[in-house]
């Protein structure tokens, strides 16, 4: 510190501090600049089939109106929704049991954590052995991808319930189910929301890799098929839908958390 301070600071200009443009204008300018950069790089260096903003804009509405594309998007997003639903119910149940019953926690801890750490791609061949090359296999991969993050977060949440709450419930002679529903569940909601946000991202990835692997209609397969036939612009529309679904779900969960859990600041 001392040696550095001996030198007078010549470069103490206030770089950037004087900038006072409205944030929205900045963001829009940056977005346009990024798209222009993408367009310029592809035009300069890449073959003509490579996706670029102007090409995507040309095919965007045609693809979105295409019945086959809509069916694919519906199939993927429906599988993700179903899988998330299954994981949410089963994962919360298992997580609460782990969080409140020590023996269950010790018995399942290593299984849940190691399967959480397993990349879902690695189990694709096993899942196809069990379920065949069909939509059930995709659903199984989505459930595998999302279940463990929900279970772990539910278990953390159930364990973090303040003991005083449980004591009050006990002194009012609350039945175990009532305690679970009225005390443990609301107290662990912030954790559950965090788990669901994480699970949704993983579920989308799970659905896409499953479609790559088993080649059933869906956004992942749409991307695979069209990029193989060098229709990158069309394929990229499917990527946009996936991103929109991911970001849309994220925004929805944040809104719900702000609306119904204003006390929870566990982002």
């Amino acid at each position, binding site marked *: 510190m001392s040696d550095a301070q001996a030198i007078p600071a010549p470069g103490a200009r206030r770089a950037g501090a004087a900038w006072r443009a409205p944030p929205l204008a900045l963001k829009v300018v940056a977005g346009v600049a990024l798209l222009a950069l993408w367009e310029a790089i592809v035009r300069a260096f*890449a073959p003509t089939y490579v996706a670029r903003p102007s090409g995507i804009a040309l095919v965007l509405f045609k693809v979105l109106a295409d019945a086959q594309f809509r069916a694919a998007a519906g199939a993927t997003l429906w599988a993700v929704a179903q899988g998330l639903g299954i994981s949410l119910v089963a994962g919360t149940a298992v997580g609460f049991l782990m969080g409140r019953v020590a023996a269950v926690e010790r018995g399942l801890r290593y299984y849940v954590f190691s399967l959480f750490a397993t990349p879902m791609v*690695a189990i694709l061949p096993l899942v196809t*052995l069990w379920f065949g090359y069909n939509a059930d296999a995709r659903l199984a991969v989505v459930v595998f991808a999302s279940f463990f993050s929900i279970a772990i977060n539910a278990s953390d949440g159930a364990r973090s319930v303040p003991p005083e709450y449980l004591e009050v419930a006990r002194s009012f002679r609350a039945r175990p189910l009532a305690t679970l529903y009225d005390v443990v569940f609301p107290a662990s909601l912030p954790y559950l929301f965090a788990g669901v946000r994480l699970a949704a991202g993983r579920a989308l990835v799970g659905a896409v890799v499953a479609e*790559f692997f088993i080649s059933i209609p869906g956004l992942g397969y749409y991307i695979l098929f069209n990029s193989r036939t060098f229709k990158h612009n069309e394929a990229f529309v499917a990527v946009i839908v996936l991103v929109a679904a991911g970001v849309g779900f994220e925004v929805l969960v944040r809104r719900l958390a702000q609306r119904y859990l204003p006390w929870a600041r566990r982002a």
Partner: protein
Amino acid sequence: MRTARRWLEAGTVAASLALGAVVWEVAGRLTSGAFWAPLSTTLASLGTLAASGALVRYAASSLQLYATGLALGIAVGAPFGLLLARLPWLRVALEDYIMMLYATPMVALIPFILSMLGFGFTPKVLVVFLFAVFPVLYNTVEGARSIRPELVEVAHAFRSSEWQLWRDVMIPYTLPFAMTGVRQAIARGLVGMVAAEFFLSPSGLGQMIMLGSQNFDTANMLAAILVIVVLGVLLMDFGRWVERRFAPWRRASE
């Protein structure tokens, strides 16, 4: 009293692991070999693979891919995030797009990479890099956002040099967040590694799983999956350690 409890806890864990091993073994013996292989057969396959040197070869190829992609992801993500900490206007301009890229399922880009770059090591490194870079960048930018402008103003008021500003404000405030990003990148990079080995040119542990499944050699396939599970657990523990080491006050949620 306390040791008794500790023993009880260790006993329950050991019992659950033993039960899992028994269930694995019995399930393998009861079902057809095409669905599941007994634990003993799986471990025997693993032993054969290890003795022949194939396991080490596959694992080394995978780890080389993983380490290259992850290192590039951190080397690009963290400095860029730090730059955005120094230039708030650029951060405001870009942060929504970074969030969007962070939320993008990068696996969806693999077919594009395949048809543009083909087979080989570089496209696979690109996949791992894409999986790893955005968690680091996104979290570093979150750290940048947590720097209060007053701190920078005070530093300027005391005529801090550019280097002092970085050393005493920018880096200490963003590093813990960057480490959360590194932990996420460690986990996501592994998914990217296996996905690249599956869907680009087959290689490494991913190829080992594929070979087992193509030859209907379930024991070999389970052995390869087991190696990846163990690798995943070790890497996740390592990531948690890294994060705690640099940021003891932040808690893991991914």
